[in-house]
């Protein structure tokens, strides 16, 4: 589904990613862990096509095609979804209108007719229940006045609505209490199918108690320096990132 080869990227002349390679297959969950400043969020920005970042070297293939040929919203329409670390508040744009537009734009790109209001509201209700989103949130402006936990839950709700092929969860666990974390993780698990994949970017092992990854990668100084199964996360939790650093120096 996704093949990243020797990816180098920078922002305002500062090199962040320095030769990152990764392969994600359908049905897999990959966790990317690493200390602050290692390039975790840059990876998600480059994958989604954020124009503030410049790719200087390397290749990315998504479903066999060169990802760099697609612009920001084309990638979204092609099924790449980013759960934002800091969801943006948009006063005056209702969640209903936002989701209806997004769903119908996606349908348009697949040559499907727009959903009727009735169909849409029914679909929205189902997805709301799936991710245990409080129903009044959907009637409010996008993220306005939402608590930290509600914002993250709202991200998962949008993911449920749009059914992406590749979901990137960027520090989705930050700022969540344990109950919210469980709800968010349940949502992600329910949405998992053999056809879609997730990249879970996180600083802590905590989220991985609930979303069990197939692979754990350690990102350090712009490169993946260690990859293993889910047990690596536990080891990191116990020994800290210094352990990797020391291992690299040896």
């Amino acid at each position, binding site marked *: 589904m996704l093949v990243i080869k020797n990816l180098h990227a920078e922002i305002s002349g500062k090199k962040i990613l320095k030769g990152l390679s990764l392969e994600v297959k359908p049905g897999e969950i990959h966790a990317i862990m690493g200390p602050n400043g290692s390039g975790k969020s840059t990876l998600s920005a480059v994958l*989604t096509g*954020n124009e503030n970042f410049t790719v200087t070297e390397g290749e990315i293939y998504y479903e066999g095609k060169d990802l760099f040929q697609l612009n*920001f*919203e084309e990638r*979204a*329409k092609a099924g790449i*979804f*980013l759960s*934002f670390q800091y*969801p*943006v*508040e*948009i*006063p*005056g*744009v209702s969640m209903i*209108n*936002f989701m209806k*537009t*997004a769903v119908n*734009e*996606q349908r348009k*790109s697949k040559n499907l007719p727009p959903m009727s209001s009735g169909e849409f509201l029914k679909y929205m209700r189902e997805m709301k229940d799936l991710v245990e989103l409080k129903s009044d949130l959907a009637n409010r*402006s*996008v993220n306005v006045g939402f608590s930290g936990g509600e914002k993250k839950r709202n991200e998962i709700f*949008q993911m449920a609505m*749009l059914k992406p092929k590749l979901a990137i969860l960027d520090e989705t666990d930050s700022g969540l209490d344990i109950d919210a974390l469980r709800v968010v993780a349940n949502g992600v698990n329910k949405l998992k199918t053999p056809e879609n994949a997730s990249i879970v970017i996180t600083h802590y092992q905590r989220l991985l108690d609930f979303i069990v990854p197939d692979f754990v990668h350690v990102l350090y100084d712009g490169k993946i320096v260690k990859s293993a199964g889910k047990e690596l996360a536990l080891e990191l939790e116990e020994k800290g990132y210094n352990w990797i650093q020391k291992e690299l120096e040896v």
Partner: protein
Amino acid sequence: MDVQKTYKKYIDIFEKFKDELKDSESEKFFKNRENAFEIFKKHGIPEHNHENYKYAGINGILDKDYDFSIESRAAKVNLNEFFKCEVEDLDTHVVLLSNGEYYQDNEPIEGLNKGVVICGLKQAKTEYPEIVEKYYNKYSSEIEDGFVALNTMFAQDGVFIYVPDNIELNKTIQLVNLTHGFGNKNIFKRNLFVLGKNSKLSLVICDHTLNSSNNFVVDLTESYVGENSQLDYHSLQNEPNKSGVVNSHFINLEKYSRCNSFVISLHGGVLRNNVFAKLAGENSEANLYGLNLTDRDQRVDNFTLIDHLVPNCLSNELYKGILDEQAKGAFSGRIIVRPDAQKTEAYQTNRSLCLTPQAKMRTKPQLEIYADDVKCSHGATVGQLDENALMYLRQRGIDEREAKLMLMFAFANDVLLKVNILPLRERIAGLIDSRLRGEFSYCAHCLLNCESRN
């Protein structure tokens, strides 16, 4: 532009036609014109050195050769057939005006509440002299302004509405002012609305030019809102690119009365909107809202003056604008709180989006507070669309253009939410949406008329 030349032109026109005007009306009435003429001679056409017109751009269109006439220029064809309004859910009484004059063959309004008068101002001067003389030019003569004076000097007709005590009009009155015919016309229209006690009137005013004539329109409306009455006033402006409009609305509020005023500028060349609101009776309330959507070389200047004369009154102002391409705009909001007007609450907000580096918006709050126990606030911002919000919407697969439209609409929506009549709010929302999408043109007969538009 040669303001001096224009000034002289209007002096000459008045000298030329004054006898004819004098013969056509009562002496008392003509006196208003003479007084206005003195004000005009003294002040002339306001220029940039006039505080209220500091950033105004109306003078740029004055030097064209506009055709002045004191003869009627109303349509000879049947406008009722020509104009059909079929707005779903919005049940209005339609009143047509033709080139600023009350259209004589307006179809009679059925089911109008007893005692309510809706007719041409010219007709009202002879049929209801006691009401017209009591109110006409009462508030507007207090403001020494060149354009206000010009209207009083020359205006002969417009709409007169009188709502007696204890009457709440069962339907919204929709005034459709059609400007038509060839040549660049100078039009002076004058409306007078009088509400008694415990009354309610809701108005939608659609100003509309049917061809691309570059007219110069000087409008004046006076609204007298009696004790415990409410006026809802919605003005929708849709004029061609090279037209010029100076529109002044004087609102006098008696105790416990309220006015909700909306000035929505959808399209125009140069538009100048003056709103003067006088809180003359205790516990009265003035809510002034404005929205302007401009692009190309269009220009909208909004000027408001809220005069708190007495204690315990409330005023709210919310003006918003979206300026695209080289559009220019100005907002100037003056609030006076007189020494006796304790416990006044006055709030003013002006927010604008400039979508290009060429678009320019100037904003100027001007609060003069002479009382010491008041709550007043003002805020003004000029900014761009939120880049982060745009990214967020686009990440969900919404095209950049559509995402920008959503954000612009959300910006305008604040003003829209203040419209209390729901079908009207929805209709205006549709107009704003199509305006932002660039689908809007001034060829429609009436802004509210969706069915017969072609």
